[in-house]
């Protein structure tokens, strides 16, 4: 498991350049351009189960969802950041990508530290230092449990029928 560490204000253009927004929308089309202008090594080297650690305001900027779809598709286990921009946060709920807002954990991490996650308990362990993060409200958890917003919506439509 690799930890990819980035700074503050990582915006959606850095995560997925705007010039591809209207020509790439499937995970296969998105993958090669993921983080292209931020970290050209990412798209080839990222592996399932990797974690992204970042500073403040991760995902700020555009409402494009390719960054979230892409990070989910390459198997990013969680993003741990000091804070997130709101559209990116909603988008991650909709796609079932785990975001953890925990400034203390981000600040405590140094290169080479081990990270493990206890999702049920809402805990993150960084080289034996344990930090808690708040659980999502039940309305939001229902979306995650269904596997994302589209699946949640499909269930809702079936019930109504």
């Amino acid at each position, binding site marked *: 498991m690799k930890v990819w560490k980035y700074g*503050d*204000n990582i*915006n*959606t*253009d*850095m995560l997925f*350049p*705007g*010039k591809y*927004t*209207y*020509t790439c*929308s499937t995970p296969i089309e998105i993958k090669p351009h993921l983080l*292209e*202008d931020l970290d050209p090594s990412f798209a080839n080297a990222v592996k399932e189960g990797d974690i992204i650690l970042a500073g*403040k*305001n991760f995902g*700020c*900027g*555009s*409402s*494009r*969802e390719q960054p*979230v779809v892409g990070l989910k598709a390459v198997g990013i286990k969680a993003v741990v950041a000091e*804070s*997130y*921009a*709101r*559209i990116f946060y*909603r*988008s991650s709920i*909709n*796609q079932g990508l785990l975001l953890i807002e925990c400034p203390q954990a981000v600040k405590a991490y140094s290169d080479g530290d081990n990270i493990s996650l206890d999702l049920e308990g809402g805990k993150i362990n960084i080289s034996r230092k344990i930090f808690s993060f708040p659980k999502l*409200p039940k*309305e*939001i958890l229902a979306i995650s449990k269904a596997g*994302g*917003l*589209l699946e*949640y*919506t*499909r269930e*809702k*439509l079936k019930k109504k*029928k």
Partner: protein
Amino acid sequence: MAMTFAEKILAKYANKKSVIPGEIVTVHPDHLLTHDNTAAIIQKISKELDEYGIFSRQLPIIVLDHVIPAASEKTALNHKNIRDFVKKHRIKHFFDVGNGVCHQIVVEKGLALPGKLLLGSDSHTCSYGAIAAFSSGIDRTESAALMLTGETWLKVPQTIKMELNGKLAKGVYSKDLILYIIGKISASGANYCSVEFHGDVEQFSVEDRFTIANMGVEMGAKNAVFMVDDVTRKYLNYLKVDPSSYNAVYPDINAEYQEKLSYDLTKISPQVSCPHTVDNVKPVSEIEGLEIQQCLIGTCTNGRISDLQIAANLLRGKKVHPDIRLIVLPASKQIFEDALQNGIIETLVKAGGVILPPGCGPCLGAHQGVLAPGERCLSTANRNFKGRMGCKDAEIYLASPATVAASAIHGKITDPRREMKK
């Protein structure tokens, strides 16, 4: 219970007497805005659309503006799929290529009204706070779900109250003000929050307010809003909106705010946002003389008639510097027509400007004015992220239409007040 603007609107749409920050409510927005990304949205739910149909043909507002006219077979096919969808589901509010930028259309056509709730799959959906609506950006997947069910959840935000005191000096505009505020509060300073503007706001037209509300998202805000006043009423009257079709919503005097900030407008000078974050803001005096290669006047932030008029006033009888490419995009067909009638377009073209069709153009780097490595662009748009205009090795600076026009004459970043003194 005393409530802020956001709390009142969300209580109303959740059918509750009151709500508190942090509470999650289910709402049915009045409209859902989507643009070229409609193609990707409907693709996600093609089966469901066949089986259940669309929630309401009145709900969506679809505007083709991001890559227009189509730049490739792929974008052309997207547009075609959207037109087919619009016909099949008899979508009421559809605006094809050439009508303008989505946010301008929504306001210009009277689709955003005071007290209404709008969501859109574009981050600058927050613009309609200019007209006292509550509006906010969401993603494609959520837009897909809304098309099917008409409902979604919103978390009631905390509110920041911004008090604007005094008048802006000559040569200083609403763009300078919002850049100044973002420079102070930072790109995440209003994250998840609703922002209300109060104080000496009567000096700002709806067009000026549009520029400010549009950039609310650049400080992380969920929405940014000016309350209904005579300026709003006059504008709606000009649009021939029936006053009985909307209800003005005002925050309670003793509403609770997360933070109250005040700004002395008399002290603000022309501002420039420098690469590569919008909050990297400096007074123009600090970077005057920096050479640029492209100037852009337009976009949903500053492509309205007053913006083009300011640029034309500065460029009348002058020539754009030979090393500069000046690109101008009216934000809508209506604005384009008005600018043609007023002689603004003629002035800008004679000065050396290149006019692009009403749309988003080069703002998102997909076509029409992409930058080369090592180039600098001074733009009236709202974002200067690395790579935003199609090239990660180019630099984007953001400023008011006056600063961009004055700089286009000199080939370098210039304080517009120098040109006004002449």
